[in-house]
């Protein structure tokens, strides 16, 4: 039997040779994209790093980084960026997880419809969507009109140009990322696990708490990290919907470039943002690998 199988199958050497040939082919296919990335992304990025540690007539220095550390306002902005990102992440999770769960449990045809609704915003420019929110949330916006009309508030409440506005706008833009990430993990969960939990006596809530939720953890981890990382570098929405005290790091960088023309300092801030984001990505990557481990074997 084993002899027959050996004769029918290619030898290990054959397989290795085939693998190597495939590897070369894939590399060739990747080459154009790789070149574009190197020329348009990696090279300028190195320039950015270089600029952040070089001062004309002085030479290489870490002065700009020291400045970020010394001047409290910069640390404040970084801290605020993290706090707003964390809040946005929590809001997205709170809204996105139930929606993803609904999507994963709906009948396929209905799920597809809801999915279209979830992805639809991606087809519109983020600026247009942000302006739409501004129309809704303004002092004379639809929301305030409605609240006043219902008698819930005596006078229009400021919903825009403060942190609340930033949170609403950012959460709205980033929610689909959360839903899609969580949903993709949930859809991979074999409904047989929940069924097995029921057969073992678990109520709906117990089956969710003890089986479905733990199995969806990779999705939660992935989704929160993704939203968090995207929040860190967010620019348009906080710039348009926030007030002066709601400056985030990306806006700070823009100011250094546009107004103070301190490109070296802007570069240092950009590098800091990049490093923080990379740390987040490293975490994200580990989580995604976790997901593969959790996958049930068929």
């Amino acid at each position: 039997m084993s002899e027959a199988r050996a004769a029918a199958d290619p030898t290990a050497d054959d397989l290795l040779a085939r693998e190597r040939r495939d590897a070369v082919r894939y590399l060739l296919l990747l080459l154009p994209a790789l070149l574009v990335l190197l020329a348009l992304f990696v090279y300028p990025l190195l320039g950015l790093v270089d600029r952040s540690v070089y001062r004309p007539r002085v030479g290489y220095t870490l002065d700009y980084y020291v400045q970020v550390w010394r001047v409290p306002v910069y640390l404040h902005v970084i801290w605020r960026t993290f706090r707003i990102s964390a809040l946005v992440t929590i809001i997205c999770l709170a809204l996105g997880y139930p929606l993803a769960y609904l999507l994963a449990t709906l009948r396929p045809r209905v799920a597809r419809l809801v999915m279209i609704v979830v992805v639809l915003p991606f087809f519109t420019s983020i600026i247009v969507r942000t302006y739409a929110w501004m129309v809704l949330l303004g002092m004379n916006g639809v929301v305030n009109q409605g609240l006043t009309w219902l008698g819930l508030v005596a006078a229009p409440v400021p919903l825009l140009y403060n942190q609340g506005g930033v949170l609403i706008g950012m959460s709205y833009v980033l929610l689909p990322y959360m839903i899609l990430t969580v949903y993709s993990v949930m859809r991979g969960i074999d409904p047989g696990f929940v069924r097995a939990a029921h057969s073992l006596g678990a109520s709906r809530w117990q089956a969710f708490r003890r089986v479905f939720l733990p199995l969806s953890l990779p999705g939660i981890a992935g989704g929160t990290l993704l939203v968090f990382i995207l929040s860190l570098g967010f620019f348009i929405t906080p710039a348009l919907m926030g007030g002066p005290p709601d400056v985030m790091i990306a806006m700070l960088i823009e100011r250094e470039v546009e107004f103070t023309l301190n490109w070296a300092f802007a570069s240092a801030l950009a590098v800091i943002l990049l490093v923080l984001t990379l740390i987040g990505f490293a975490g994200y990557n580990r989580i995604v690998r976790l997901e593969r481990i959790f996958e049930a074997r068929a």
Partner: protein
Amino acid sequence: MAPAEGITGAEVRLHELTKTFGPVVAVEKVSVSIPSGSFFTLLGPSGSGKTTTLMMVAGFAYPTHGQVFVDGGAVTQLPPQKRDLGMVFQSYAVFPHLSVFDNVAFPLEIRKTARPDIRRRVGEALELVRLTGYERRLPRQLSGGEQQRVALARALVFRPRVLLMDEPLGALDKKLRTHMQLELKHIQRQLHVTVIYVTHDQEEALTMSDRVAVMRRGRIEQMGEPAELYEAPASRFVADFLGESNFIDGVVIGPRGPGRWLVRATGGLELQGVGAVSLATGQAVTAAIRPEKLVPRVDEAGGRDAGALNSCTGRVEEAIYVGDATRYRVGLGPDGGLTVKVPNRLGLARAREGDRLALVWSPEETRLFARDDS
């Protein structure tokens, strides 16, 4: 696990269970009474309604019509978690994020069993399926057979009085499957639990069951003990699905004793058989004969009363050596051919292709079915 003292499995009764999906009738009026502590198998090809029937017992599907009784009480409207039935799924469904111990402890934790009791009972359950020492492993570190055992221990640890199994051995290789069949049977006897087992594997059904119901197109085609089903199939479908049969079409010539009929095959061969249903002279019938019931006549004066036996002679078209036996395809001319299975015993010379082979077999082992019944 200690055999529960004085506790036996529950009696399960299905009353006219029916399930329709739109215009499709998946299960139609299935009525069965399964005695306490017995091993009952629903056997059938895919789409025969066996799994749907099991799901209605488990509570994962609600019948369109009919009732499920466990020990006389109707459970038809109860959700699965309130039925207290153990279930083993084809996919095992061992929770991938929990260790073997936590998997088996799951139903006990749900039932708020005290911690020391949980530890003891999980230990007993793992011992029962011979997985002691595997407590801390994760499912992905287990083979398919081991995961299967975890699923079994988990389904038994809370001492359900009924165990439902949906093709639990389907994904295992043949050797392991045979081994697990016997082990399952032993465990079932030891615990006196009532088992309802679903499979499409007839060998599995015959090996393990006290009683088997053969399902076809949502209905029970025949129900009985394994030997009864195999030796006395009630229809051509059962004769074909359960084991293997040669079929010869013919017409009834006349009665030859109680329940016995003489049949002339289309090609002229005459044979006697037992009617699976009541027959009449002139009726079109199919005769079914198991390959191993056909015996090559080595010696003309074989010592048997040849007149009481059916006999025929054909040419060996094909001889296949299958280890424990040799399978012959014997051509009978206008009557087609017969598959014959002869054990490879000492002193039994094997016939070669082209040889003439005389065959005899008992009329008792020739089942006659009315031909339009299939």
